[in-house]
């Protein structure tokens, strides 16, 4: 009631005065423009809810490794009770979408992978007619995370930004820490359970993919009939995926693959330069537009490609933890920062890491043996670290760290490749910002190295390929000269050679020569 309306006989109470004053103040605030609502601050919602009840109705999306591995991971996780859809290998459309919805100045693995997820969701919405709400409700994306020091650790930030801006606000991105385990898997009702079953399913998928890829790269350059190897590999993928999905014996499946692969006709007496692809993990691993289909291009140009395996990356992760622990174990254990050992049982940690390393190597060795991958050696991480440390301090992390340096040195000193291509995304911090600088010293020290640095952006393929051709020319000459020398060093007989070595699973061990043909010829 307004004061003026009070009956004459009664005076205002203090409560009424205060009430009217409050109203007056509110009115005045409005008139003076002071009535703005309190500022709403932006927050990243980062939805993480994924519980067991949702598991049967929720599709896990994943991807980012090789085609075989993405396919096997999908199958293996289906085998342990998840609904999984692996994403396609990212292409240039994914890059364009990634650029549209991502931050400016990112490296292109971010654009490709982020764009690939958004592209998949857009397809679900626009091509398959699933509503956005339904997509968000029934899908989650699972990806590996890291905590620095390069941009890789912030991919999840980028995924969320792109998803928000593309209209998929609230879409769940679950992080799988490379060195940690599933962050969100703590607690009893988590949709993702990081238990031994899950872990071994993933491991089987990754390693199966590794051995299949490795053997494929050994056979394809020498196949007699173009396309034979890829057809055989497709059959193998099918067999392995089925075994993983139905939790059948992976050993039997690998043995069956061996039978298929060994039927491929090859001609080994070809002087093919061996080209080792090193560099940033994603750029060297992807098999699509992200590296201009580099592996395919090299093979089409007459090279034999030596790729780095994902298992080696896992060994690198283990090595880091072991090395860091050893460095600090006799210090006062009061350092509480991330690398510090405060409150940790260092001995137990080291034993666990050592066991993990041995297990990985043993299982890989077994898989390799079963599929017919002969003389394949996983890198000795301690050796790689030792030879690179003086040039690239092993404390420096991010990307492949010192490994690029170590691998380059080894490729020369251990005669592993005629040519090394270090492939990295444009502006890759650890690789093009540091490794390349140090590698210039390495190439000066080892002038015989044919070394090519390729920065990928998704565009300008003509220039990149031209540069590769430039160095490949020299590598071809070296391979040819080497084969001639190998032939000259023995009583070479082409018929004997063909009879002995024209088998798809035949592959030489290391030796004086680099090229496969030269090594076999000198055998």
């Amino acid at each position, binding site marked *: 009631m307004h004061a003026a309306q009070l009956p004459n006989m009664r005076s205002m109470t203090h409560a009424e005065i205060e009430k009217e004053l409050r109203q007056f103040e509110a009115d005045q605030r409005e008139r003076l423009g002071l009535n703005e609502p309190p500022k709403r601050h932006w927050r990243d919602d980062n939805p993480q809810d994924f519980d067991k009840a949702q598991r049967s109705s929720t599709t896990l999306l994943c991807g980012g490794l090789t085609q075989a591995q993405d396919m096997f991971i999908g199958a293996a996780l289906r085998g342990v009770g998840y609904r999984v859809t692996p994403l396609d290998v990212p292409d240039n459309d994914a890059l364009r979408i990634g650029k549209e919805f991502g931050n400016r100045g990112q490296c292109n693995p971010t654009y490709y992978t982020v764009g690939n997820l958004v592209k998949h969701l857009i397809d679900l919405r626009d091509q398959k007619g699933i509503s956005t709400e339904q997509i968000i409700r029934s899908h989650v994306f699972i990806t590996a995370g890291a905590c620095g020091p390069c941009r890789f650790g912030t991919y999840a930030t980028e995924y969320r930004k792109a998803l928000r801006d593309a209209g998929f606000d609230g879409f769940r991105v679950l992080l799988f820490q490379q060195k940690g385990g599933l962050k969100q898997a703590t607690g009893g009702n988590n949709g993702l359970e990081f238990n031994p079953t899950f872990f071994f399913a993933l491991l089987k998928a990754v390693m199966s993919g590794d051995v299949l890829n490795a053997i494929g790269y050994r056979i394809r350059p020498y196949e007699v009939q173009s396309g034979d190897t890829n057809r055989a590999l497709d059959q193998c993928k099918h067999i392995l995926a089925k075994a993983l999905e139905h939790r059948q014996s992976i050993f039997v499946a690998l043995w069956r693959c061996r039978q298929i692969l060994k039927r491929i006709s090859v001609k080994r007496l070809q002087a093919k330069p061996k080209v080792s692809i090193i560099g940033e993990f994603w750029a060297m691993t992807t098999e699509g537009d992200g590296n201009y289909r580099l592996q395919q291009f090299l093979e089409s140009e007459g090279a034999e490609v030596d790729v780095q395996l994902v298992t080696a990356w896992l060994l690198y992760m283990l090595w880091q933890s072991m090395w860091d622990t050893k460095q600090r174990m006799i210090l006062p254990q009061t350092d509480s920062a991330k690398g510090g050992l405060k409150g940790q049982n260092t001995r137990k940690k080291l034993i666990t890491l050592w066991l993990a390393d041995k297990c990985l190597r043993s299982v890989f060795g077994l898989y390799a043996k079963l599929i017919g991958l002969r003389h394949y050696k996983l890198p000795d991480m301690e050796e790689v670290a030792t030879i690179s440390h003086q040039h690239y301090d092993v404390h420096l992390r991010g990307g492949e760290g010192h490994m690029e340096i170590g691998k380059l040195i080894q490729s020369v000193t251990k005669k592993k490749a005629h040519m090394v291509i270090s492939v990295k995304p444009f502006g890759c911090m650890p690789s093009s910002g540091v490794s390349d600088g140090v590698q210039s010293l390495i190439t000066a020290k080892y002038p015989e190295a044919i070394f090519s640095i390729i920065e990928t952006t998704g565009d*300008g393929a003509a220039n990149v390929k031209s540069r590769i051709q430039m160095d490949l020319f020299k590598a071809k000459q070296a391979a040819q000269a080497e084969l001639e020398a190998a032939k000259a060093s023995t009583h070479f007989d082409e018929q004997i050679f063909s009879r002995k070595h024209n088998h798809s699973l035949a592959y030489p061990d290391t030796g004086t020569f680099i090229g496969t043909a030269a090594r076999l010829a000198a055998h």
Partner: protein
Amino acid sequence: MSTCSNLILGVDVGSTTVKTVLVDPQTQCILWSDYQRHETKQAEKVMEQLKAVSAVFPRISRIFMTGSGAEPLTQPLGAKFVQEVNAVTMAVDQLHPEAGSVIELGGQDAKIIIYKASGPNGPKRAIASMNDKCASGTGATIDKCLVKLGLDPREICSMAWDDSKLHPVAAKCGVFAETDIVNLVKSGIPSREILCSLANAIVMQNLSVLTRGNTLLHSVVLLGGPNTHLHFLQDCWRQRILETWKERGHKFPNDDVSKLIFVPPNSDLYAAFGAAIYGMHEPDHIGAYRGTEDLEKFILHGRAARLGASAGPPLVRDADELTAFAKKYRIPPFKAATFEPGKIVRGYIGLDGGSTSSKAVLIDENGDILCKQYMLSKGNPIADTKELLSLLKNDFAQQGCTLEVLGFGATGYAADVLEESLAADANIVETVAHGMASTRFFNNVDVICDIGGQDIKVLFVTHGQISSFRLSNQCSAGNGMLLQAMAAQFGVPVKEYADVAFAAKLSPKFSYGCAVFLDTDRVTFQKEGFSREELLAGLALVLPKNVWQYVAQVPRMSALGRTFVLQGGTQYNLAAVKAQHDYIKERVPDAVIHVHPHPGEAGALGAALEARRMVLQRGKSTFIGLDAAIDLSFTSRNDTDTICHFCPNHCKRTFIDTKAASGRTSRYISGFSCENGTVESKQKLKELAQRRKLLKAKYPNLVDYESKLAFQSFYKPTPLPEAGAKLTRDETRRNWLGTPKAVRVTRRMQRSSDDDLAHRQNIRIGIPRVLNLYSTAPLWRVFFETLGIPSANIVFSDATTPEMWAEGSKYGSIDPCHPSKVTQAHIHSLLHHKSRERQLNYIFFPCITHLPTFVSGVMDSTSCPIVAGAPKVIRAAFTKEVDFFERAGVEYVDAAVTLTEPNYLVKQLYEAWGKKLRITHDECEFAVQQGFEALKRFDVEMQRKGSEVLAQLEDENRAGLLLLGRPYHNDPGLNHGVLDEFQALGYPILSIRSIPKEPEWLDRFFDDDLRRGMVDSPLSVADVWPENYSANSVQKVWAAKLAARHPNLVVLDLSSFKCGHDAPTYGLIDHILSATATPAMNLHDIDANKPGGSILIRVKTYAHTLKLHEEKLKQEAANRNELQKRVAEKRHELLALQRAQLDRDADLQLMNEAYQAYLDADVTIELPDRDFTFEAMGDTQAHSGHQTALALVNGHRFVIEERTDLQPIQAGQQIALDSTLLSSLNQLDTNSKKSQQITCSSCTPHSCPTCAQ
């Protein structure tokens, strides 16, 4: 017709030209050759040349092709492809076996081949490298710069090299170079100086990066179009290569330099010739020439079939769509107003001196356009202006009229020089000019998009005012120009661009972004066989992506509003408009899209409107007058006399002196890098220093202070404990099983000997002033000082300067961010200057892997990997061919260190320094502790200064600029002095370190977040960025959070080009600041070069925003005071009403009388013990016939009323409550019988000792 047989063709299909040679394999002589531009019709040009050669030599047997465009053509011709560098190598091997190096510059590629012997007598090996993407387009960049300079390529071929007047040009990127060239042009620098500067930049870039750190060996063969045709470029190579040889101690014959570094005859044919030579080494069946028949088929049918599904859509589906679109959006031709002869026409001129063109408009007194003029820039802004004004004048003279100019306004790159020389009425920043021009024609505008030759501007408009803006940075610049240049490359006049592009049936999908990258895409697409129509269509289609995704970065366009206005000269190109239209409509279906009727002249129109406003406001014009302007004589001087010697930069300034017929003279100075360059005498410099000192005190720049303090000796370390002093500490020992076990031990301090200390006292250590040293230098200084190294022996390099960079930038082999690359110049400076002044023993450049951070709950606290690894890159670069450290007698120490684990840091430093400094582990540990103490003191001091500045800002309702940057952005050489510009405008600058971090101070800003459980500490960023591991990035994000909550903070966000750690934060910081509409300006691609024009436009536009923001702050404060006053008055009014109502109550009247009687019986008021002071809160107000004022008495609010006996009270006036006043009040009270004179409005009488009295 020749009868030779087995002839071999070599064809080089480059990005811009086709070169064909016919070689006789017997003699290896060139029988026939041709070199022509292909204008993107590569296949056609190849066919033309093949037909021509076949007509003379019909018996061609084989063909070998090279070049970026060759591959698709090999199959139809039966050719074999030879990679370009291999082809060139073949040619050089054949023709110049003595060559040590080859440098070939092409349209897109740059290649360097160095022939190195493997071992002392080993065979020569060719080490070849090609430019990376960023530095591509060398020839194309020169071409584009010639367009900007208005020069014909043929004119400059014989131009001489002159290194006496070189200006900074960034050649790492073609677009950066163009930006610099534009600025030089607009500063009136002569074209020849600009070209020499460009040549120098290209040469230096190639020497520092493309050689990958290798020294070029003699003899050097220069190949490729630019090297062949441009003599000044050849001489530049000669000078710089010789310098490098001398610096690196490379021995070369004492011969004529033009023989050591030479351009051979037919140098542009080397790749084609090499391809043919290559063919001679191949078996005879390889490269068998099939004639041109299949090539013809390929041209007619093959390309379209090959492009297939990878292509994108065309610009228009059919002719109907085009007709309908053109009808709606084609800009109607402008008809200038016509007048009767003899009429005097009055109006205001606006002039926009843009990057590639200059525009002028004349508006009448109502603001309507009467006529306009446009011309391509000819290189000098005053000459351009004079010509434009003459054209305007002639327009009227031809009609027999007289033009009377009422005012003159300028905008664009040239505005400053015009303001000075023509006394312009208005000098308005382009963004505001474009905003005015847009709102003049359209209502409810939400977004203005202006695409000029060089810049893209996207302006967001709220209530007719620019609320925020986005401008193209260096990386996204040059898109308008790109369309023009690309059209020119294809031989299409820019006016016909749209017609050609609309004819395409499909388009290549360009990747958006950098103009250089677009050009490399173009090469790829050409190679794939896309036609020029398709390429032009594709380029138009990528333009909106550049605008909205790259520059504006708005993925959700619908949030911007629905009315879009397209401006800028590019809108005359209907293909560009169509692409923009479709892009916007796809994302904002109900968008209303306008094309400004004067798109190219919108800036000039804005300038004219502003001139009109200023003249009307002032009542007169300052403009020197039309005729005086046209007749203005000017000289542009850039010589030894104009060099500024007021700082070590020694800037090569340009003086533009003008003289009007009236005798009025003016001088405009450009080309300086700091404020000292604005003056010409020592006296003026003194005055400037005085002004700057005052400015510094009034508006502190704490970023600058921090950058100085970090390297000073401000902390006196505690002396090392004596030998044998007791130490109690935690240690880890292994037990008999080897298991580590923590134990607490007490033992004696171990000290090194006196000899060791004496050894340390003679050691001198150089440390580069770079990267994270800006945040950790106090730790290192105190670490060494504690160990006994004298303070004077710890030597930091100087802050970065362009000269330092120019001198020491030739060691690099990679091209990362500038802050990490610039470290080589600092190491060079330490070796060549500091160490020569007095010998250094060590250079310490630690690989800092982890940094301490104040942000709580982070995942990790890492350093950027490039920054952490930079010392290793330096080691590689400085020891690769020559060990420069060894040569200088200096040991380089680049140990990895982790600052987040003190125990581990002690271990790392002891391993690095223990033997060198002869220290014990205990000493090392103590010194590290002292180092951390110094870091703490550094923080405390900066926060102390920050608190003072913030308190002042809050008191005065002003805005302060918070720099979101990395530690090295404190380096004035890296931040390009942008902060000084804002300081000069009256804004204090704060650094992140200077923000107080005590929770008690921060809680008031984060109270709501804490209460709602969003964060567990005011220093957390968990609510906005869970993936928070990078120390410097996370601090930037936290600082953005604070700025969003502190009303007096605005933001300047600096990032260096290629900064990988900042990139993920762009979106976060934008979200955080946009949510609260916190003003922010970002420069996200700062690099070695200072894009002066680009920075200036941002600073001016942001200054406009900040002015509005400060006005808002002051208005809000005034409104809050007003509210307080009004509420107090209202309270008084209500209480008065209450009293009146009580007075009407008969019973109460009786009670009042009783109370009054009680009061009358005791009217004495004791003067209180304490001093009572009234502080009037507002002026006295006439109120119901009485005078009322608000006052404070010892912190209590009072309403003083009925003070008719006193003088009016002023707000803030202090009034002593003395006995006179009290008795006066009593007297007044008694007389008037009022119940109360003083009412406390902030407390009840019972709780208030004053009221109780």
